[in-house]
């Protein structure tokens, strides 16, 4: 599998009224042919700027971009084999759905019959057959999104760029549509670069995720990797939620690494790390990787201070004896019985799901 899209030391500095802002800081990235790579991060992390640099709507201060081996760094958008689905879709209000989708083909001087065939083909693909003659203003948000998608698919670009395409849709539609997009992308095998701040979305559809913060890449990896083995505290806390417990390394062996928590209890994490014995570290525990048991049965002990129900699960905030706070998520709590604030509990950790980070 060759790299279709290569970003080399890509940097973008914005000179505003005050201090210059480094939006993208020496980003190195390779997107494989046919993969859907997601840029994930909070607002201002540089993901959108990076996407726009690839699309040609911004030009880098430093660095190069290669597509299919060819440098495209200085080409204007119309000469790049990329196509973008924008957050606000950018549909042409004065053209019908058909004309919107046909636009790219018309620019390329494709003969009329051929245009008709391809547009109808793609309309079927996205499920909008029959709506050719509608003006975009008369479509629902979800339909508009599909037109935007159809418009870029029909010109068969080498790389698809998605700029938070789902953020204007309501929650349920978002889930439906992201599956739809992923399916089409996989079927057609188009290399795609996807930007979102929604980590659930990223986890659901990506081949690989790039977590970004303050213009820099924090971690690149498959969703489960990034989730289970975060490279740093930022990634750990951004994807899902994470609890950090203070710990100290006591031993390293064949199985993994043993750490001692503040209350003296010890835990083994089944992975090899490069830490020295005696080093202070942080134990990363996901809320769903904790069971609540009777106080004397738990590794840790504490008191429930907050309870929130979200239908499928119950969320508990527990103040530990050691003084730290942990968040615990119990699935199906309503069935089993919800605990009330003030209850003393014991906590047991799923050792397979533990992770360690530097202090």
């Amino acid at each position, binding site marked *: 599998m060759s790299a279709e899209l290569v970003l080399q030391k890509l*940097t973008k500095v914005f000179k505003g009224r005050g201090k210059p802002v480094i939006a993208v800081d020496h980003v190195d990235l390779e997107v494989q042919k046919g993969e859907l790579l997601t840029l994930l991060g909070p607002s201002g992390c540089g993901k959108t700027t990076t996407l726009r640099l690839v699309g040609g709507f911004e030009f880098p*201060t430093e660095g190069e971009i290669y597509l299919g081996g060819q440098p495209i760094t200085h080409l204007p958008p*119309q000469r790049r084999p990329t*196509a973008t689905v924008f957050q606000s879709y950018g549909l042409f209000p*004065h053209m019908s759905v058909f004309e919107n989708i046909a636009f790219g083909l018309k620019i390329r001087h494709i003969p009329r019959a051929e245009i008709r065939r391809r547009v109808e083909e793609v309309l079927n693909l996205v499920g909008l057959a029959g709506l050719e003659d509608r003006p975009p203003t008369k479509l629902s948000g979800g339909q508009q999104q599909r037109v935007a998608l159809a418009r*870029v698919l029909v*010109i068969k670009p080498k790389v698809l760029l998605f700029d938070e395409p789902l953020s204007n849709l309501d929650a349920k539609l978002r889930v439906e549509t992201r599956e739809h997009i992923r399916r089409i992308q996989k079927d057609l095998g188009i290399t795609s670069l996807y930007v979102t701040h929604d980590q659930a979305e990223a986890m659901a559809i990506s081949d690989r995720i790039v977590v970004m913060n303050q213009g820099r890449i924090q971690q690149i990896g498959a969703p489960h990797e990034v989730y289970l083995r975060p490279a740093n505290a930022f990634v750990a806390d951004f994807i899902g939620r994470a609890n950090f417990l203070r710990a100290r390394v006591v031993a390293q062996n064949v199985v993994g690494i043993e750490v001692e928590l503040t209350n003296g209890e010890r835990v083994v994490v089944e992975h090899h790390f490069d830490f020295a014995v005696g080093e202070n570290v942080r134990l990363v525990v996901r809320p769903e990787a904790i069971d609540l048991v009777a106080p004397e049965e738990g590794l840790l002990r504490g008191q429930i201070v907050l309870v929130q129900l979200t239908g499928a699960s119950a969320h508990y905030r527990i103040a530990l004896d050691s003084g730290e706070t942990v968040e615990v998520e119990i699935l199906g709590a309503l069935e089993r019985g919800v605990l009330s604030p003030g209850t003393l509990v014991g906590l047991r950790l799923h050792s397979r799901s533990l992770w360690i980070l530097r202090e």
Partner: protein
Amino acid sequence: MPRPPFFSVTRLLHDPALFLVIFVVFGLVGLFVVYPLSRVFYVSLFYRGAFNPRYFLYFFEGRPYLLRPFLNSLTVGVLVALIGTTVGFIFAYAVTRTDIPGKKVFRWMAMFPIISPPFLLALSAVLLLGENGLITRWIFTRFGLRWSVYGLPGLVLTETLAYFPLAFFTLEGVLMSVDPALEESAMDLGASKLRTFLRVTLPLTIPGLAASFLLLFIRSLEDFGNPVVIQGRYPVLTVQAYLAITGMYNLPLGATLAILLLVPTVLAFIILQLWVGRRSYITVTGRPSTAGLHTTEPYVKWPLFVIVLFLSGIIILFYGLVFYGAFTELWGVNHTFTLDNFRYVFSTGSSYLINTLKLAGVATPIGGLLGIVIAYLVTRKTFPGRRVLDFLAMLNFAVPGIIVGMGYVFAFNTPPLQLTGTAAIIVLIFIFQRMPVAIRDGVAMLQQIDPVIDDASADLGAGFWQTFRRVTLPLVSPALVAGMAYMFSACVTSISAVIMVVSAKWQLVTVALLHEVDNADLSQAAAYGVIIIVVVWGAILIMDVMVRWLLGRWRHVR
């Protein structure tokens, strides 16, 4: 810190269509905006090839024929700006924030002076308030009052009437754009309406007030038509510069007076750009106002209504007098009804009228298109020199018409570009003098289009022209047509810029009007005025129809 690359020239070379357009635009602006202006500077500073800023030195010495017009112009400018802004604000507030009756009518009234031919307000002022004016005779002498409308009072009166609509439209837009939530929350927290107005609404309109002030200041300074009639013994720079050039052929003196005029206007313009920014400060095709602090208290509403009514009444009176005068034998002396004046205009003046329409008709589409291309380049694209282009293209907004005309005469009088006496020079002046308005309107239009649409078009493979033609132009066409109608009116009512370039072959109707005024043939002048008003309003009504048709067309797509 990474070093920014040697600019986007490389990038520009990859987009040849864009590069070519930028190159051509720079060339046009350089040749037809900057070059003529530079010639005016040159003539004021050099005499027969040697550096000799004679008249600048005289000015600093305090010689009266240089110092007086300068101080006079400034005085009038400041007064007109102050009074006009106040009046405009009252008008705007009444129309946007109260429920007085007849709002639509008042808005049309305010439009009148904007597209009016020059001189007419001053003529009416003389007829009403002159030494032997109607009001003077009936009212003043009865009470033994001695007051002359000539000079400072007349200038302030006519120019305030002529320009307060600009303040009105600016402030109308500003008042409508104040977020009602701000006012509502103030009142919610217990502030009275008056307090809210003083502490919340008014401060938010300060940029608009400043913009109006500066705008009116610039316009007043460059006014030519009114001072020509009514300046009396209170000379102002525009008229004196004109007299120096055409009367005495004293080019250095004329050019010096022009530069003295240019300094305050350009300064005001720069302050305007920096402080208020590039936001469209006038949208004459405004929409009816809705939200915001509404005053329905009678003790506020009715006084405002009376003021607005009074102002509208004055406008009707002044222009009505022109209409009346056009049908009289000998305006001011013999008021028998006659159509002779119109016969005269259509016989002697027919070629003037046709020429004016022809030339304005050619200039308008070119100017409109050029304006929107530049607006597009300046707001949507980045390239080296973008801000320079923005400033230069808008420069003529601040440069008084008389200086533009002067510059063209100096610049294009000799080969290789000898354009004096041709139609081309008039068309060029029309285009480049009015272009800032077209650009500003273009910017406003483009702001209504989500930039995403441009990105999408380029993303799908369309180059500069393709995007412009297929996407931008159709979307702005209603506003473009509206803008062109105003541009057409502005060209037809143009005087100070073109007065020095009309020739035997290419005469313009406003210059003919001036001749009638010069000769104090007032009935004939009035007839010309009426014809121009009719033409201009006709153009606007046609535009209105066209805009509706265009809007209707792409609302039902296919």
